[in-house]
């Protein structure tokens, strides 16, 4: 198992956001995590990425306990995150934003500055612009490219469709299968259920910090998702 969480309880100070969450990603898999606002999806991602630190055994990477590691240490193990809100560095150009993604961990793999420009050609044209001068969709591409530069084994995508127009979302999601083909496993956190299910092998649904549904994307029914997403018969 590439990554799993076991009985993960995470939160912010005195506020608990996740309750005993069991979650797993296998090598090369693509997992969708869906749920309403505040359900705990981002908390789950941040716990895996090391932004939120927990007990060591709560998050396992290839069996090794990483729950207490810092974000930088987790990243060096090959788990990269595309953070919610993109969070490009305003002081860096597009190209520098990409470069910084790959300057700490140098791992072999298909992704480099050239291949990312191949994935998202528009970025090559805007390579010297400040990161924040781009449109939302282009910034999202930079954020994804930045995370890919370290050739991670696992890519965490936190709400990459947030604030983007549907046609832009389509373009971005069109790139995901190519990333998968490169050998990277992915976790896609979304409020947009349609897009998430279109790329995922399996899906988890969170509600109020608990896993309310899990199964193969192809197998889950609309009603089951509805119930899991909103709770009760909504």
């Amino acid at each position, binding site marked *: 198992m590439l990554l799993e969480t076991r009985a993960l309880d995470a939160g912010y100070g005195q506020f608990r956001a996740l309750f005993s969450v069991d979650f797993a990603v296998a090598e090369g898999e693509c997992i969708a995590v869906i749920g309403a606002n505040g359900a705990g999806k981002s908390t789950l991602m941040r716990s895996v990425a*090391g*932004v939120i630190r927990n007990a060591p055994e709560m998050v396992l990477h290839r069996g090794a306990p990483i729950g207490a590691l810092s974000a930088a240490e987790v990243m060096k193990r090959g788990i990269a995150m595309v953070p919610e809100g993109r969070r490009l560095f305003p*002081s*860096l150009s597009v190209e520098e934003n990409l470069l*910084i993604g790959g300057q*700490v961990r140098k791992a072999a793999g298909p992704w480099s500055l050239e291949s990312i420009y191949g994935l998202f050609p528009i970025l090559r044209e805007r390579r010297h612009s400040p990161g924040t001068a781009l449109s939302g969709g282009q910034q999202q591409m930079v954020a994804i490219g930045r995370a890919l530069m370290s050739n991670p084994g696992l890519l965490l995508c936190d709400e990459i469709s947030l604030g983007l127009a549907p046609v832009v979302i389509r373009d971005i999601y069109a790139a995901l299968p190519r990333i998968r083909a490169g050998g990277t496993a992915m976790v896609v956190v979304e409020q947009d259920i349609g897009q998430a299910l279109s790329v995922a092998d399996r899906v988890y649904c969170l509600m109020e910090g608990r896993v309310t549904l899990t199964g193969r994307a192809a197998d889950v029914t609309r009603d089951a998702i509805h119930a899991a997403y909103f709770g009760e018969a909504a």
Partner: protein
Amino acid sequence: MIWVDTLVQGILLGGLYALFAAGLSLVFGIMRLVNLAHGDLIVFAAYLVLLGVSLLGISPWVVALVAAPVMFALGWLLQSLVLNRVLGKDILPPLLVTFGLSVVIQNGLLEAFSADSRRIPAGTLDGASLNLGIATVGVMPLLTFASAIAVIVALNAIFYRTALGRAFRATSDDAVTAGLMGIEPKRIFAVATGLAMVVVTIAALYLGMRANFDPSIGPARLIYAFEAVIIGGLGSLWGTLAGGIIIGVAQTVGAAINPEWQILAGHVAFLLVLLVRPRGLFPRAVD
């Protein structure tokens, strides 16, 4: 043509103040920390160089070359062991810790070296001058100014042309997301402080060769450095040079009018800029 002479002297003095300020600007730009002990660290480095010169009998330039990595290590340790522990949203702890540090350094130097004025011997360069046509300038002030420019060019090169510089800028923008890139902010901060201490060593070299110094002059250097940074605008090293020059010129002009007014003139210039342009002349940093 006494005014041209005064002006040129003021500009060159600005180079020294820019050297004082560059380290301060660097550290503040990256981690929003103002080290109240900055001036005292410059004085400490000056004593270090003095010690090297008196004990080893070699040229101050060589001593400074050796002292620089020592100061880097000290800065690195200071940040790692002390300042990293108090950095956070509250501005009070770093302020108070560095204030305490300032007092400790000043009094430590007092105990170790007494309050006597000292000077780093500059050999043949002491009092040497160069005729530039419009004015005759001392070689030392000219060298100081040239060094200030060299330091700023070097720092800018680091910031904008290296991976380390990328890491500096990214950490300054968003330390959490920098962590997602594999960058440990605390380690970056330690490197930054170490680098600042190298600049401090250069500043100390020229401070010590130029005029007498004693343990108590640190705070005044901090104030000049700070004024240069504020006038220049946060985030711009060239702005810091401009700020230093403005202070330097104000001081020399003030002194030319009345020697008692030298320091006051510098402060007044600062307050005037603060009044008219609170963000400085060339603000760049996104705060």
